[in-house]
């Protein structure tokens, strides 16, 4: 007896197994980032001035420390990568493997681009002596964006696998491969969505 509904849809639930699985995983991820966002709210509400004093200078708005233009660029990059991710799945649905490769490659490149901008941001902070230990604003900034960046790395690894060695499954088990790309896409959209919340929370308000 094989495990049912690994590829086909169970009629009364309308999903195949991995789809339910990834939605549950994303629910847990929402709670994880939710916990950190809650920490942000708690820490910010506890002080009269935010970001507050760092290295002897009193900051009253996040824009004085972090770069909104760079973060806006990163937002555009991630949204674009979500679009290319959907296009890669759609290409497979339209039986176009070459197009899939193109769009998946673009997704991975954009993800790397995000990380490059991030590295630039972090590097500039460290150069000015702004380390996580200096203040709670910097602490939560590095923790939230750092955990998010780790999730971007995770996405690169997964997408990279499906771009490269994992793409063999297109030949051996086509339907299952398409489903896997759909699942990877859901995860990637979630990573994008976290950033959509991160950006205004840390940088804008």
């Amino acid at each position: 007896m094989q495990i049912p509904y690994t590829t086909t849809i169970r009629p009364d639930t309308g999903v195949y197994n991995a789809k339910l699985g990834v939605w549950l995983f994303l629910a847990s991820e929402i709670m994880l980032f939710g916990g950190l966002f809650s920490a942000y709210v708690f820490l910010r509400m506890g002080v009269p001035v935010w970001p507050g004093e760092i290295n002897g200078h009193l900051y009253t708005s996040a824009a004085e420390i972090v770069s909104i233009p760079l973060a806006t660029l990163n937002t555009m990059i991630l949204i674009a990568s979500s679009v290319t991710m959907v296009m890669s799945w759609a290409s497979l649905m339209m039986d176009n493997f070459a197009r899939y490769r193109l769009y998946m490659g673009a997704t991975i490149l954009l993800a790397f681009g995000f990380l490059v901008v991030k590295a630039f941001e972090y590097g500039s902070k460290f150069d000015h002596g702004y380390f996580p230990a200096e203040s709670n604003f910097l602490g939560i900034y590095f923790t939230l964006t750092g955990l998010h960046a780790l999730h971007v790395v995770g996405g690169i690894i997964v997408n990279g696998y499906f771009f490269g060695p994992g793409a063999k499954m297109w030949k051996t088990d086509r339907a299952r491969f398409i489903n896997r790309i759909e699942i990877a896409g859901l995860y990637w959209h979630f990573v994008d969505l976290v950033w959509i919340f991160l950006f205004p929370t840390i940088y804008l308000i």
Partner: protein
Amino acid sequence: MADHAHPPQTGTTPDTDVHGAHDAHGAHHDEPFWRKYIFSTDHKVIGLQYGFTALFFLFFGFCLVMLMRWQLAYPGQPLPLIGGLFGDMRMPGGVMLPEFYNQLGAMHGTIMVFLGIVPLAVGAFGNYVVPLQIGAPDMAFPKLNMASYWAYFVGGVVMLASFFVPAGAAKAGWTSYPPLADIETMGQTMWLLGMVFLITSSLLGGVNFITTVVQLRAPGLSMMRLPFFVWTQLVTAFLLVLAFPPLEAAAVLQLMDRLVGTSFFLPSGLVVSGEVLDIAGGGSPLLWQHLFWFLAHPEVYVLILPAMGIVAEVIANNTRKPLWGYKPMVYATLFLGFMSFIVWAHHMFITGMGTTISSFFQITTMIISIPSVVILSALFISLWGGSIRFTTPMLFALGFLPMFGIGGLTGLPLGLAPTDIPLHDTYYVIGHFHYVVAPGTIMALFAGIYYWYPKATGRKMNDVLGRIHFWGTLIFMNGVFLPMFIQGLAGVSRRLYDGGEIYALSEGVIQYNQFMSISAWLLAVAQIPFIINFFMSIKKGKKIEENPWKATTLEWTTTPSPPIAHGNFVTQPSVYRGPYEYSTPGVAKGFTGQNES
């Protein structure tokens, strides 16, 4: 977004290919030992792995507290015979140092909860029984299942290893409150890392259980025909998936505080050993408490729900009648799961949150007692008019009922803010939660072991040893935990290295310490018949024929089990009726299996 039709498939799919299944069947005969038994993806093997590992950790955690109980009974006295084994850093001259006592306390709690009970209740029983009870060939994600077990294993190794680092294991309680936990020694960092592994294990497991129950039920098995045990595992899985991540977030923040020097949980101007700490400050110890208890409260329902599930199965089977109030029990379980997310700050009544917030959590806590009472009452009422068979599992299931009753009732003064004020952090709390977990959950888990042992091994455990085990456990558990209520009401605080001896208020109740310690050691002795029975019966137990308990649920339709890697059932079962068709009016047979049309 609905799924669209998939493009034409080039080969046969595993869902429909009988010949493919045959090939897979053939391939399994060649599996090497390490793939069949060590890195197995079969839910039964993984369930047994969880079971053995968890039982070891329960034993280890019990040993930790038996050590502690020497210090509590005879504070400052050298421990005879084995005291010298612990070395000068822990017990110089055989006398326990306070630092070591604190390690034992923190790790006893951590190990029992996260490495013992949950892996046994969910990882072992859940993994083994749930796919069988729903008529599935395995869990939805077998490789994820294997990863869950090994993540748990690694977490356990990290926790055990923490005893051997400089200054020993975590000693800020299983609750790891900052500021203390933030500035503690290396063992605390290992606690945090171990927790990250354990949380990962639980998350992967939770996702697996929910998907399995939703997607892999056999034809005809609607949700309201599920055995109650499966319902409890389903709700438990939701609690694990949704409640654990905030603790993971908190662990990340505490690791940042400890390793990177942030001040998420450290207030400004904190003085340690006479010196002001050189930190940014501005953090909040309360933040940790909120994040921690957001998990830790649902966690206690993770501890109790599978146990209630097991008791329900055993009671229905041994009263030869359906469970009374199955539907209310199901709705109560769902409501309990939901409510469990909004009661957490009843652990924080004396932190100065303010009366409005305290009122909110007090009210939700009172409300959450209702579904617990519904479930317990339904289990009691299920006995009425039953034809009771006092089998060994039934003894433990029956013992569970009043014990959980005591545990639950003693929680009420803790859930009400005004009465919690004198009781918080006293032995009353320890008595309360141990009653629900020890004579509560653990006895239910024993019931489960005696009940499903024949399914896993094809043999029954010995009944005489089982009875000795039952009575010893019941009596001595009460001996350990009942006096704690008395001590707590007198005001004796928890986590005191000398058991409260130094305080005048404990004068009238301090003598119970010796009584409780002796009960604890006798409780250990009472487990010996169980340990012997458990291992001996693998080879020497009475071999069983088909369905030894004459049960109705699907796991008993193929006993003994098919060999490993030969699937769970000879043919895919279909379900035609509810889970407890015992003594059905108008039917001559005493019971009808779910798969009988």
